[in-house]
């Protein structure tokens, strides 16, 4: 059993790209602003000409927590696990998980890169692992 994102017209392209192994961020076609999570209009220039830009997948751990007590039964056998706010090299921050490292070794500022993990049939989540 997994917890999977519900998708709307606005958010589905993000998850579709993840399924294809690409990390994308909403981009304003008018002024170039990158926004995550996506919005129905650009808050800077109010354009509704919005698309998606593939980003490098590189970033740093902006902050994190090691969860040792699950608050949902779906995560009961997953503790300890790491939730992180990752700041992408391109600027936007996104919530993700950190994999490929012991939870106790995660640090703020640590360089990370995206990896893709299929969590359910047809559903892939971007995760991050330490960058070499």
């Amino acid at each position: 059993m997994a917890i999977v994102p519900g998708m709307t017209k606005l958010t589905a392209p993000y998850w579709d790209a993840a399924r294809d192994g690409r990390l994308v961020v909403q981009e304003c076609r008018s002024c170039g602003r990158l926004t995550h999570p996506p919005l129905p209009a650009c808050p800077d220039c109010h354009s509704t000409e919005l698309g998606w830009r593939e980003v490098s997948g590189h970033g740093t751990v902006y902050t994190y927590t090691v969860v040792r007590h699950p608050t949902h039964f779906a995560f009961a056998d997953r503790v300890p696990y790491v939730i992180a706010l990752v700041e992408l090299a391109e600027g936007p921050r996104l919530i993700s998980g950190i994999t490929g490292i012991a939870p106790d070794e995660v640090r703020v500022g640590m360089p990370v890169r995206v990896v893709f993990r299929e969590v359910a049939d047809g559903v892939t989540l971007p995760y991050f692992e330490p960058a070499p």
Partner: protein
Amino acid sequence: MTRRPVIRNTAAIVGIGQTAYAKALEPTAWELAVDAILSACADAGVDVADVDGMCRFTAPFETVSEAMLVRALGIRELAFFAQAPHGGEALGAVVAHAAAAVSAGLANIVVVYRALSQSKGGRFGRADRGGPGGAAAEGAGDIVVPEQDNLSFAWPYGLMSPGQLFALWARRYAAVHHLTEEELTRTLGTIAITQRQYANNNPAAMMRDRKLDWETYAGARMISEPLRLFDLCLENDGACAFVVTSAEVARTLRGDPVYVLAATQTLAPYREPMGIYVPGELLELFPSAAADRLFEQAGVTRKDIDVAEFYDATSYMPLRSLESYGFAADGQGWRYVLEQGTGPDSPLPVNTHGGHLSEAYLHGMNGIVEAVRQLRGTASNQVAGAAVALVGAPAGSATILAR
């Protein structure tokens, strides 16, 4: 542009009421709300039938509706009722709505209430069957998180509770301000233990008889690092309520009305409570202009505040609130806590009822009730001569009250 203060001294809290607070109470939230409101009206010296306004939190936080209460209490007619979103961040909002309503003449006697029955479902520490808006039945295959307020970008990673979110803030705070693990633990623990000591002297506090020492605090299990068990608030049943009326009417009802100097709301992009996508520095959840507006409308300065009740779903929140409301410099709140503390002899006693960590969790509303007691001079942990109190939430909803 200076705004003309619209509330200052024109509205007052004239009655307070509360039920017992406990992990599980037999009555339903509806029954608890009725009990607390009747107590508050009796304390105010008003007939509940004369109540003509109500303010409350939106669902799913508040499950007891105005309609249920009007029926159960035999209230003739409400002429004003309003709801505020964002859970605990509504603590200043409901005061603002009530005070604005009586100041504008929309209502005369406004009841503000909060009733919780977490034992019967709706535990804020659970994101599944037990939690408000919790996802799906057990064993039913994959759980699809409906996209609302960006939860679909958080829940699949197991970020599902306020405690986990504020662990992200606490970790960021320690990193930005270069705290060692020991310093972070000492800081959060000082807040938790100080509040427990207040609760030990508060007959209404759930933790009245439970001492908390350093060994127990630091040895408790990690819930979501760096937050340990005692850094997180209680989960409980209970209700509290208060009565807001015009200053003029208040003076006819009691000799000790507590005046509303200011009550403010604030909402800027991603600065909603738990707004993890705050642009710029995450720690700056609370726009500082909103704090300035609160004090400007109240017509007082930080030095005038005798006691503060800060919303504390976690111990991190009072720490950061000391900074964001301007009682300690940015990044110096932890030193302030370690050096001055928040206890009875500190420059600013904080959460003198024990707070959500040790009295009970009533979404900030028991902080308002405690502030009223402090200003009446009837608190268990009375701050001598308390004349002005601040009650504030971490993203900026707040009120300043005065006797």
